[in-house]
């Protein structure tokens, strides 16, 4: 069987880079995609503007040039169509990596996601499985137009059969994305728009994976546990740094995967510190922060020395008003206030 995607003549070598030079998260994501395309002929990348243009954030920059338009292609503008395409390709045994241009624009695909993406293995008792990855930039902080700053991760986390991964830094982003592509089941991969370029870090230039379902201790501490992910990690870090100045030792857990949640790591830390602050930038009611709080309330009640405090967006749409939108997203100041609340309780 001659696989069109195998035609190696179209494959230009990935550019070499200096491993000691820090790179952005979007560059790390680009590198992971490039590597996946090179290693596995079943990997296909598609979405709106991902091909010729290389994506609105340049996450797929250069990939079509190196791997050909069979492997990396632009689709018509229709998210349900993109998700359905990915599901169909997955049914047929390929490894589609679809991009939703913004998380706020994945909503038209929710029927495909809720009705099928997470159900196919279950309903066919594993006859059909969906090794599909969906990438979507999410969250606020960079003054995008209306509807471009949504954080709908709790909605996807509520869908059985779909994993949800949200990296907070370049090294994790690359390894988690490679793990997502290698995963035999559907993985949603949310990428903080704010983090795409705000932070550079050294990234292992080789192939490696970061396990899905394992949180990471971002910062060790004893007095309280801050639980966060994605774009909130750097915000919490700054709050923890400030708290350290006041003699408070905060442990930060970067969940990395929110579904399945690494409850073991969360609970171990909370049992140690006795205090939990959970930070997300999604609307308050029924956000994923609430799931984390619920797990703690169910499993670590005896260890709690203070209320479980959530620092979140508000029960209003992410505001399209540039001058004030930064007050919607949790700031180090708001996290610091929560830290005080649990410490002074």
């Amino acid at each position, binding site marked *: 069987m001659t696989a069109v995607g195998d035609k190696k003549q179209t494959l230009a070598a990935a550019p070499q880079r200096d491993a000691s030079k820090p790179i952005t998260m979007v560059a790390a994501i680009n590198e992971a995609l490039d590597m996946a395309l090179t290693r596995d002929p079943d990997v296909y990348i598609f979405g709106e503007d991902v091909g010729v243009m290389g994506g609105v954030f340049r996450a797929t920059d250069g990939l079509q040039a190196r791997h050909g338009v069979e492997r990396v292609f632009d689709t018509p503008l229709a998210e349900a169509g993109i998700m359905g395409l990915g599901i169909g390709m997955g049914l047929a045994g390929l490894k589609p990596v679809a991009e939703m241009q913004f998380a706020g624009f994945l909503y038209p695909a929710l029927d495909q996601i809720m009705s099928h993406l997470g159900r196919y*293995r279950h309903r*066919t008792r594993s*006859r059909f499985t969906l090794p599909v990855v969906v990438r979507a930039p999410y969250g606020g902080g960079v003054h995008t137009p209306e509807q471009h700053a949504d954080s709908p991760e709790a909605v996807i986390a509520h869908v059985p059969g779909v994993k949800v991964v949200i990296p907070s830094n370049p090294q994790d982003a690359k390894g988690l994305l490679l793990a997502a592509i290698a995963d035999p089941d559907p993985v949603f991969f949310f990428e903080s728009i704010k983090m795409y370029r705000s932070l550079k870090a050294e990234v292992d230039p080789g192939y490696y994976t970061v396990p899905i379902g394992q949180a990471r201790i971002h910062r060790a501490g004893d007095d309280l546990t801050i639980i966060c992910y994605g774009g909130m990690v750097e915000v919490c870090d700054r709050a923890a740094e400030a708290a350290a100045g006041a003699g408070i030792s905060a442990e930060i857990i970067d969940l990395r995967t929110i579904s*399945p949640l690494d409850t073991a790591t969360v609970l171990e830390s909370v049992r140690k510190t006795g205090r939990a602050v959970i930070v997300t930038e999604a609307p308050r009611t029924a956000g994923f922060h609430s799931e984390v709080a619920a797990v703690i309330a169910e499993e670590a009640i005896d260890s709690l020395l203070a209320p479980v405090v959530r620092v979140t967006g508000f029960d209003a749409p992410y505001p399209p008003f540039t001058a004030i939108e930064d007050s919607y997203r949790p700031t180090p100041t708001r996290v610091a206030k929560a830290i005080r609340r649990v410490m002074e309780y």
Partner: protein
Amino acid sequence: MSKTSTEVAASAGTLPAAQAAMAASVLQPAAEGQPEVPMLQFITPQGTLNAGEQPLPDVPLPDPETQLWLYRQMRRIRHFDERAWVLYRQGKMGVFPPYGGMEASQAGTAAALTTQDWLFPTYRDTGAALTYGLPIAQTVAYWRSSPHGWYMPEDLKITPFYIPIATQYPQAVGAALAERKRGTRNVAMAFIGDGGSSEGDFHEGLNFAGALNAPCVFILQNNGWAISVPTAAQTRARDLSRRAEGYGVPGLRVDGNDILAVYAVTKAAVERARGGEGPTLIETVTFRIKPHTVADDPTRYRTDEMTAGWDTKDPVLRLREYLLAQGTLTEEGEAAMLDEISAEFEEAVAAADALPDPTPAEIVDHVFAQPTPQLRAQRAEIMEEDSA
């Protein structure tokens, strides 16, 4: 301002009459400038060869051997449909959506595939699935809502029946595109109803297939009804095949109760897709003479007049007349055929009866390749409860 359809309907008073008025009136404006697209038809409802000019002159009448084989397919799936009603009444089958009267549309389309091709059926398309090759025992198990009915055989490329309307269309494009990317000549066929053609996924699927040149055959079974809503209230369009043009895709219309025409058209579309020439939309014009499901009461929304005429268009009897007249089928040959079909069915039902019941813990199986810690804990919880 001219009266709207609904105003006409409102003044009409009683309900089915109101609906009939609505249907008639809504059609009017579209009908003005829009002539009905002609349908391919080889065999007339009287069972004679249609002597008129055909809208698709390139599409040939299938040969007698194929004709007989197609007749058998229809008989076989009609048997299932009829027996399903009985099993339902006996409490041995769940809520089943019948397709009786639509056999030509289902068998004639699916018969054009091999099992290397993909089939995406809806809940209405048990007949298509059986024709494609889904084992009867498994099909019975499916309509008993047993997990055994959902595990599709590894050597078939058929999905379980789709319930969320229209979602299968873009997925079929994905499967078809995957075949093309792999360099095979396999195609994907997806079914939809007249109601389903109103969903956005119908549009996105067809447009993607056109834009990406996916080897897809889209079957739109226009059976006149979406539960209680007649096609004329579903859309102002006279016919649905015309939508294909808007995607640069050929749209064909065929008498959905003439299996020879259905088969011939579908075969041509399948070959076109295999040859890399892209997708086709085929509207099979048929009728749902049966209720929406075995549990539905159609008198709530339609009168006898609204279904009148369609019983005489029965696809099985139509081909039978023709084959008997041609001598391709004999009464004895038919009797033997029916016996075989019946025996095959009874054996399959016995096999289905013998399938073990699932256990509650299976609820949380097959969610991921590796169960998460959460699912392991939940499985233990169910097991504990089950044994308590």
